[in-house]
């Protein structure tokens, strides 16, 4: 008998995840090496991904939606105490991890948009709107937030390793293939991710990113 395949993550969500991984690494590298032209491009790409993810949280497949995984502290505590999961996707605790990482990344991009380097030479596309001192402050905030982001990423990887080693549950596979083998006898529940909605999201994200990268001038 062919095993039933249960979809977990839709394609746009997986692309978002892995592109973000690559872009965070590239942003770190280009920032450290003062390759600021590349660093700006990388930041715009992350901004694009974030806008798309926020949109996809409202319009995406079942497991991508905020309404599905943003739960109160009680649900998160209950999950910690060991109540099982009824469905695939983010558990109530993982949902908070996603929200924290998105919030930190948004703050990081915002700070970068206004940041000015020590020479007044390199800057984010919105730095024209603020003073040199405010731009320097944004730059300090930008690097401070980076440390917080690293902390969250370490936590994220630690949690995945915990599931893999202690719980014998591979979370990495589904983030690549998009699906798991369903429990015997269970029928697969579709994610209902729409191609047209994804394309709409790409357009919205591209338009907003372009506008911001041009310093809000058309």
């Amino acid at each position, binding site marked *: 008998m062919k095993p039933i395949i249960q979809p977990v993550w839709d394609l746009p969500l997986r692309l978002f995840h892995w592109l973000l991984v690559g872009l965070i690494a590239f942003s770190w590298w280009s920032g450290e090496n003062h390759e600021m032209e590349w660093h700006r491009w990388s930041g715009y790409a992350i901004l694009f991904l974030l806008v798309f993810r926020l949109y996809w949280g409202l319009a995406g497949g079942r497991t991508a939606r905020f309404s599905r995984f943003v739960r109160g502290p009680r649900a998160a505590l209950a999950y910690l105490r060991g109540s099982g999961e009824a469905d695939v996707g983010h558990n109530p605790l993982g949902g908070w991890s996603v929200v924290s990482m998105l919030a930190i990344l948004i703050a990081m991009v915002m700070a970068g948009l206004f940041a000015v380097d020590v*020479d007044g030479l390199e800057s984010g596309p919105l730095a024209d709107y603020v003073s040199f001192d405010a731009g320097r402050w944004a730059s300090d905030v930008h690097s401070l937030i980076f440390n917080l982001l690293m902390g969250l990423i370490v936590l994220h990887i630690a949690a995945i390793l915990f599931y893999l080693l202690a719980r014998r549950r591979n979370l990495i596979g589904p983030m690549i293939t998009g699906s798991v083998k369903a429990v015997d006898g269970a029928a697969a529940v579709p994610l209902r991710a729409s191609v047209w909605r994804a394309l709409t999201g790409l357009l919205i994200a591209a338009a907003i990113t372009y506008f911001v990268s041009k310093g809000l001038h058309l």
Partner: protein
Amino acid sequence: MSIYRTTRRIALPLAVLTLAGAVVAAPSDPKATRQASFKKMGAAMKVLKEQLAGGSPAKPGMLAAAQTVAATARQQGALFPAGSGAGTDALPAIWTQKATFDAQMAKLVAESGKLVTVVNGGNVDAIGAQFKVVGGTCAGCHKQFRADN
């Protein structure tokens, strides 16, 4: 009490304090003075950059900014007495390789002086090119002598 009177009551002592601070700070605290001056230069560079990026740069604003950079640059070299690096981004190399540092400072004075001349000349392409040279001088010296953070 009206806002106006409150403001007046605060404004005068504040002005006196600021003046006193400026008088006291300038000769006795080279560290604070050079830091404030570097910030002034950074802000002036930002003004120049925005003017040049804008397409139709305004000469008076650019001239004032270029003069700020040039005038401040001439004073900076003398504001690094031995032992004034503690608690700042100034690297020890400033004092162990003093000749190289002084040469960089002299280069900044020369290039920022040229920038004023070029801005006066009014050729936007030339201003852009010299702006890059001055910026490269800042960055080059920072790479060697300033903690990267």
